């Protein structure tokens, strides 16, 4: 927009809409000659000092200075005559009735056309007027703040009678201001908060102290709302307490939010209980399913099956086992999310841990023709959760079995001491994992594409559970992998478990 287009005219407010402006600073004006004789003054000057303009003209400026100030005025008058220098400063004037009027002086010299000083023209601002106006503005300011505040204000006396309130208060409670003023504050208090309010008032009367309190307020129509009351005491000129001013904030919204939150907490708790019950109930039938299916594979228990029957039974076992793993993983994930998984802190030997893992995998390793080896620094004793660490290593080994090929697969479990920590590694010579997929591995429901070599079903939760467990044991988990060469999954945990 160019300057010419700028609608300057519209910016001016029409004079009829101008607010009424109180003339806050009446300016007194006087003009004196070199003898100090007042040769002119305005109406305000004369009036403020109790004279008429005609009376003032011809008087000496010294006549308008109090006796006590005359020497000083005279000195500066002489200086002015010699040098022409004037000062803006405060001086006292004296009125016809001997009243002192404080003014702020600001003078301009008057010269003849050839530059000779002939006198001064002075504007005097009435300071006492400013002070009075300031007080007025102050009161007005607070009155306006009180009256127009969106918060509810009420002022009560010593006995709890409402002596004033603002519009917001009256409106909110459904009364007119006239109705509200003069009633006992208890009439505006909900029944459930009355005893609380009585105690609060009694306490205030005794000690003069009052804290912010939560109270249920009652409206004229009987409905209630929660409010936060913040009192400040009011004192008279002798510093005696006469009452209290109370800011009342409607906290319905806050209260509702709090209510919603606690309801949601309750729902969360129910969900939690539901999941744990469901998990338990899902697991129960698995014992006879897996148990009997396994019993069928034992000729000495239920007789010998033919090959087709045995194959069918083994399929049942494999799938039931997968279902069991799924249920356990879901429960573990849920527990980790809620921070409800419990961790033991017991001393144990790494060797005994590895022995137990070795035993549980000996059958699988033989069956899948995978070479498994275990290496450990000697005599490592750690204080942590043995079962959970076994769970993590077992999980990593199952993953490794998925990655390696039957016949040529090698899986090595290594344990090394590293200062205050112990590093557990599960190293395989399998297909490896592409770089771009590596960082997603520890997320939930991630499954590496192992369809080529897949030997057991997974939930996609395994590594995220491992990560959760290791972090809870105060350690960290990671991996390195080169495609077609193999992967190393490792975790490092403190020898003495650190609580997280």
């Amino acid at each position, binding site marked *: 927009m160019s300057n010419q287009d700028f609608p300057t005219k519209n910016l001016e407010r029409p004079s009829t809409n101008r607010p009424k402006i109180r003339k806050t600073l009446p300016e007194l004006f006087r003009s004196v000659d070199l003898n100090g004789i007042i040769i002119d003054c305005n109406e305000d000057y004369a009036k403020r000092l109790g004279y008429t303009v005609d009376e003032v003209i011809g008087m000496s400026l010294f006549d308008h200075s109090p006796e006590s100030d005359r020497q000083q005025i005279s000195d500066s008058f002489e200086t002015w005559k010699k040098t022409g220098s004037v000062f803006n400063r405060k001086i006292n004037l004296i009125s016809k009735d001997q009243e002192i009027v404080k003014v702020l002086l600001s003078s301009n010299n008057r010269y003849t056309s050839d530059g000779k000083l002939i006198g001064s023209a002075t504007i005097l601002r009435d300071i006492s007027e400013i002070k009075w106006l300031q007080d007025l503005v102050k009161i007005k300011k607070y009155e306006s703040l009180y009256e127009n505040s969106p918060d509810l204000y009420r002022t009560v006396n010593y006995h709890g009678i409402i002596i004033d309130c603002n519009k917001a208060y009256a409106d909110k409670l459904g009364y007119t201001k006239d109705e509200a003023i003069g009633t006992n504050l208890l009439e505006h208090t909900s029944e459930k908060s009355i005893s609380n309010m009585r105690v609060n008032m009694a306490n205030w009367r005794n000690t003069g102290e009052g804290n912010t309190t939560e109270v249920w307020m009652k409206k004229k129509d009987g409905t209630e709302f929660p409010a936060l009351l913040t009192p400040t005491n009011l004192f008279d000129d002798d510093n005696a307490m006469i009452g209290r001013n109370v800011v009342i904030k409607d906290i319905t919204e806050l209260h509702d939010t709090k209510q919603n939150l606690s309801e949601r907490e309750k729902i969360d708790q129910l969900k939690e209980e539901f999941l744990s019950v469901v998990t338990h109930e899902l697991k129960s039938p*698995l014992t006879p399913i897996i*148990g009997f299916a396994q019993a069928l594979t034992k000729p*000495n*228990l239920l007789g010998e099956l033919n090959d087709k029957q045995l194959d069918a039974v083994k399929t049942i076992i494999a799938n039931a086992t997968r279902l069991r793993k799924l249920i356990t993983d879901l429960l*573990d994930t849920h527990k980790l999310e809620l921070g409800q998984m*419990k*961790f*033991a802190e017991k001393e144990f030997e790494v060797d005994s841990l590895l022995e137990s893992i070795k035993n549980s995998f000996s059958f699988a390793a033989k069956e899948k023709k995978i070479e498994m080896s275990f290496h450990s620094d000697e005599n490592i004793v750690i204080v942590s*959760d043995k*079962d959970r660490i076994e769970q993590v290593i077992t999980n990593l080994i199952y993953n490794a079995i998925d990655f390696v090929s039957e016949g040529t697969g090698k899986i090595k479990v290594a344990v090394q001491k590293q200062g205050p920590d112990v590093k557990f590694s599960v190293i395989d010579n399998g297909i490896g994992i592409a770089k771009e997929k590596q960082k997603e591995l520890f997320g939930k429901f991630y499954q590496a594409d192992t369809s080529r070599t897949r030997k057991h079903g997974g939930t996609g939760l395994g590594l995220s559970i491992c990560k959760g467990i290791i972090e809870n044991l105060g350690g960290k988990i990671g991996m390195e992998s080169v495609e077609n060469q193999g992967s190393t999954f490792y975790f490092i945990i403190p020898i003495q478990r650190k609580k997280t």
Partner: protein
Amino acid sequence: MKILGIDDNPDIIKYVDLTATGMGHEFSSANNGRDGLKMIREKKYDLVLLDLSMPEFSGIDVIDQLVVDDIIKNQKIVIFTASSSTDSDFDELIRKGVHSYLAKPIDIDILMEKINEIESLN
């Protein structure tokens, strides 16, 4: 061995019965904690397989009562549990005199191994 199984799930009792009997042991059962406790008080068993979570009178109640009776030290009690509680929860039960625990669902090999382990102790 004389083995007692206490579990409110009859299918689990049947499974444990099949396994124990198949291994040549003598198996008795109760489908609630109260009856199980009565049987332990009346007769000495070489192994008690006890389910923890049973309605009304649970496995914990049975254990507590055996502690009160001061006969828990005469028993080899192996707990069945479906909850995935960790070691720390069982420390208390082990301290009270329980031998060990098996997490449900119980693999037949693990169950057989446990029975053999207890047999070797007796």
